[in-house]
């Protein structure tokens, strides 16, 4: 019997090692060469994140609560939600997790904004072209299934440990829903309404901003909601590469077996998740109120 039938015909060890080494070295060379430029590129993001985090931490706690409540009211007009928000924040502060919670809120907000700013245009491009959709879809699948640790490695190799690599890692993990649902929402827009827009002489841009995006908005918001939830789920992993916030005490608790500390911080993450989730959902519903039931005979 030939040997390739009994043993899997694999690359020999030396070649494999060479391959790995070659790739790693090439990437290291790349990051030595361009690391500084790439870091500089992300400076505005870092600057904004730091500024926003300081703002949340330095503002008196009651100002923050009032601010959040004002935002919730503007988005949802729901008293129940506001009461829930106040209770959640008071408990968080009472148990000494205020500062970490502010850091986490800052990074989640920034990651969500980045995801929307990048994801919505990508979703729009996908909806406009089947070819783009065919290319992007598998990439999104990989992004969502690849273990986060794997893409943390090149990010950290390139940018070191800190906030920016944290944001990048979170965005990679959390951006697919915005992209997918923007694409879906725009593809689902009623053909007849689009024809009407054309018949009235709308340019492609007018058609996009006056018809497609507004009509896709409830679906896009559902994507934003999922993105926020996924970003929150990444808080602990992001903490491993130096992102401050509720993730760090959780990590600490794992290594030191502090059950209560872990639980409390975990609950704070859950509370934030519930608040973000309810607010973005209620906002989506409020937008959807007029959509849908168009045909009454």
């Amino acid at each position, binding site marked *: 019997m030939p040997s390739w039938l009994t043993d899997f015909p694999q690359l020999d060890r030396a070649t494999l090692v060479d391959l790995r080494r070659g790739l790693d070295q090439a990437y290291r060379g790349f990051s030595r060469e361009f690391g500084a430029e790439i870091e500089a590129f992300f400076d505005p993001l870092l600057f904004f994140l730091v500024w926003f985090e300081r703002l949340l931490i330095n503002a008196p706690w009651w100002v923050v609560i009032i601010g959040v409540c004002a935002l919730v009211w503007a988005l949802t007009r729901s008293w129940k939600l506001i009461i829930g928000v106040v209770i959640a924040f008071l408990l968080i502060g009472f148990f000494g997790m205020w500062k970490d919670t502010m850091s986490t809120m800052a990074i989640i907000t920034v990651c969500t904004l980045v995801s929307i700013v990048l994801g919505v245009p990508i979703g729009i491009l996908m909806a406009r072209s089947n070819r783009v959709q065919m290319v992007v879809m598998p990439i999104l699948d990989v992004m969502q299934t690849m273990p986060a640790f794997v893409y943390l490695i090149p990010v950290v190799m390139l940018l070191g440990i800190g906030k920016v690599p944290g944001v990048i890692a979170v965005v990679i993990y959390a951006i697919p829903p915005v992209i997918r649902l923007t694409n879906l929402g725009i593809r689902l827009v009623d053909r007849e309404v689009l*024809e009407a827009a054309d018949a*009235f002489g709308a340019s492609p841009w007018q058609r996009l901003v006056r018809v497609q995006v507004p009509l896709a908005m409830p679906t896009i918001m559902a994507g934003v909601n999922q993105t926020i939830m996924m970003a929150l789920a990444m808080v602990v992993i992001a903490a491993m590469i130096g992102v401050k916030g509720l993730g760090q005490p959780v990590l600490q608790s794992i290594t030191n077996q502090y059950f209560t500390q872990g639980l409390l911080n975990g609950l704070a993450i859950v509370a934030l998740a519930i608040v973000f989730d309810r607010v973005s959902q209620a906002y989506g519903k409020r937008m959807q109120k007029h959509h849908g039931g168009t045909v009454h005979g």
Partner: protein
Amino acid sequence: MADLKIRIEGLYKIFGPNPGAAIELVRDGVSKQEMLDAHDHVVGLKDINLDMTDQSIQVVMGLSGSGKSTLIRHINRLIEPTAGRVQVDGRDVIEMSKDELRDFRRHRASMVFQRFALMPHRTVAQNVAFGLNIQGLERGEVDARVTRWIERIGLGGYEAHYPGHLSGGMQQRVGIGRALATDADILLMDEAFSALDPLIRYDMQSALLDLQSELKKTIVFITHDLDEALRIGDSIAILRDGEMVQQGDPQSIVLNPADDYVADFVKDINRSKVIKVATIMRPPANDTEGPTVDGEMLLEDVARIMTGEGAGWARVVGGSGEVVGRVSTADVMGSMVRQANDDDTVQAAQ
């Protein structure tokens, strides 16, 4: 005589993978069914020629699938023809550049849709404003025009409602308001009233005729309903399987159907609402006693006058009041009912 507004010449539309080659087959006389079965192409329109008069209502009628929607969409080029020309005021729409076409759609031709096609995220007022927003008008001007049109279409007080909360008839009023607000001189209406209940439909027809008497647009009105066609149309064109089978004024269609397809359409029609008395009158006689009626009057109205006065005869006068003919009650009644050889008259009698 009014002027020519829209001229459609030699218009063909073939749907399928290779319309350019398929059109030669169609020109050689291959039938629609054969094109579909043997060549995988749908003949949407075949050699359509139609002239539409300025400031009048041109109805295009035909059964479902006969190509009505395809035809009307060539006038604002929502559909590109396989061959042929569509001229509006002497300008070929098919030759227009992208920008010219956009301008044409913004300012010259607006459209009303069968299923309204309103923007569900916009209020009534915002929907009526849609075309004006697309034109890029200033806000003040938009608001002024929208207010005026909302009053005109009878939706005052509903400005802030969303279309999803309105009845079908009201939604289509919004659709009409949206189309009229752009001040386009051509109005394309694709089965605009077909989705409405009969009573509402009748009201909408009245409203349209009322608007038209004042606005004098050139209206292309698609319908599959002959009653509607006869009531609304100054001129009617009938499509069958993508081909034009007859065109003319309502009366000529009812009196002289070109083939069985058209005859089938007109067989149940109330002829007294279509036929004008001048069409059936006899030569004048000096000794005719009885009421005087206008030659343009419909038989229905003549019959009402004659029976009201118990007259056996009526004198028919022309536009300047001169006597041009006479009719007897029997003439009027006889013309109202269908020809004796009509087979379902016999069935009805049994």
